[in-house]
């Protein structure tokens, strides 16, 4: 029998589709199906919000009349949906790799700063989901060589646009915030603009690469 994800009614008008316990060697392939499922559900116009997270999707219905229908329909949709129906955008994030902690990260791994830059910028990252702050993307794909424990003492202010590493993750801070990740670079790319029609540059399901900038575009130092 094919394992099926768990589906829970959270409230009269919200459902949790949970595929996180599925024993898959490739978590990214499950995440791709989650994005495809979210994209399909969005096209029905029956949901006010669809929130992909780590191998799960929370569905917020506009009306509680349809909750039972979706509880029943979701398992077969999951089986039928083709990952290939979902295609995200690819973003190039121009980055000045002169972060406050880049030398620390290099020393920690016995690498040179240039090697850290090479490894970090030669990876294609997948945007798993957004959370924490508007526009903050949870990225998949940081090379194990760069996994670095968080700072002992978090900074009270990590500047907007910081490119940072925290344990097995890397990410970009969309706004000034306290944070404990190691800052390896900065980008001027605006990730979140509340006044724009499309407020977030990056969406779940997109991919991105960091492009090293040399001696230009830096506004931080």
């Amino acid at each position, binding site marked *: 029998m094919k394992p099926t994800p768990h589906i829970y009614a959270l*409230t009269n008008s919200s459902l949790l589709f*949970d595929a996180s316990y599925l024993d898959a060697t490739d978590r990214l392939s499950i995440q791709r199906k989650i994005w495809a499922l979210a994209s399909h559900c969005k096209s029905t116009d029956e949901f006010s919000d669809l929130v992909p997270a780590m191998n799960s999707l929370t569905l917020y219905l506009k009306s509680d009349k349809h909750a039972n229908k979706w509880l029943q329909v979701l398992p077969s949709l999951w089986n039928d949906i083709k990952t290939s129906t979902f295609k995200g955008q690819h973003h190039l994030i121009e980055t000045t790799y002169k972060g406050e902690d880049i030398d620390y990260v290099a020393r920690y791994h016995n690498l040179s700063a240039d090697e850290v830059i090479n490894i970090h910028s030669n990876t294609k990252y997948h945007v798993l989901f*957004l959370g924490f702050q508007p526009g903050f993307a949870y990225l998949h794909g940081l090379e194990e060589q760069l996994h670095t424990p968080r700072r002992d003492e978090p900074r009270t202010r990590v500047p907007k646009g910081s490119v940072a590493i925290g344990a097995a993750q890397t990410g970009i801070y969309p*706004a000034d915030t306290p944070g404990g990740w190691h800052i390896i670079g900065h980008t001027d790319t605006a990730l979140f603009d*509340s006044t724009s029609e499309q407020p977030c540059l990056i969406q779940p399901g997109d991919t991105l690469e960091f492009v090293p900038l040399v001696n230009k575009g830096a506004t931080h130092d």
Partner: protein
Amino acid sequence: MIKVLKSGVLLTIQDFGREGYRHLGVSKAGSLDPFAQIIANRLLNNNDNDAVLEITVGLCELEFSCDTVIALHGSDLQATLDGQAIYPGWTFAVKNKQVLSFATGRAGLRAYLAVKGGIQNTEVMGSKSTDLNACFGGIEGRALTTGDEIPITPYYGEFIKVGAMAPAQRKLIRLHPSPHANLLGEPLLSNFVSTAFKVSSNSNRMGVRLEHKSSLVHSHCLPSLGVSPGSIQLPPNGEPIVLLNDGQTTGGYPLLGTVIEADLHQFAQFRPLDTVEFKYVTFEEAAKAKQKLDGHLHQLSLALKNNL
């Protein structure tokens, strides 16, 4: 215009908040007590979603620079208009240069002030609400401070002088079941529903933290999942957090359940040291509770129509 002479503890502009942006990490924001917002707006024949002022604790002072009509709802924070008492649930005419002052209340935490026509700040991402964490909406994305000018439209016309009751307060909060019941186990969940919690002073618009003496400590770790206002997170230290409107959109703590829609607004009024208890109910009971509240609002609308 309304000029802020004293901002008090936390004064913000709110409406129903934002929908459709949760996948981008954007919180709902919006009035913690949407029923108080609706009732105050209906008393003025406003739209339900017209922006109002959410006043936390009180101790603020507002000066009107035009004539208008106002309605207060939510907690009684001992408001006075040029020294004359103003009561929640009633409409009052306000003249240019009059000052509305709030002391503080003996029960409840938040009052809602609606003005005729609603507050006229600019909408951001479909709402006039202030997002205090992401710093947008309202006025510059922040709580109001002394000297701020809140845009409103003058009103000199007629209005109905009527009162409206608030839905009853509850301390026994009804919940939808936990999606993590198997993970957390029956003993922990039955311990949870037989515990009387105290509201922590470490609570805010993001969430209400609950203190208690029994042990709900655990060591489970989950992949992040979508959370929303009403989700009750249980961090490993065993102190539950009821997420409110400014809460984050995803989180990794196990959930004890979700507060039913009809009861969530009660958390707008809980003060530190207030007691809260929980009870799991069926989806049918939750739907009935919602119908009862909707019925209350419907009756109010009928009564107002008959008074016109």
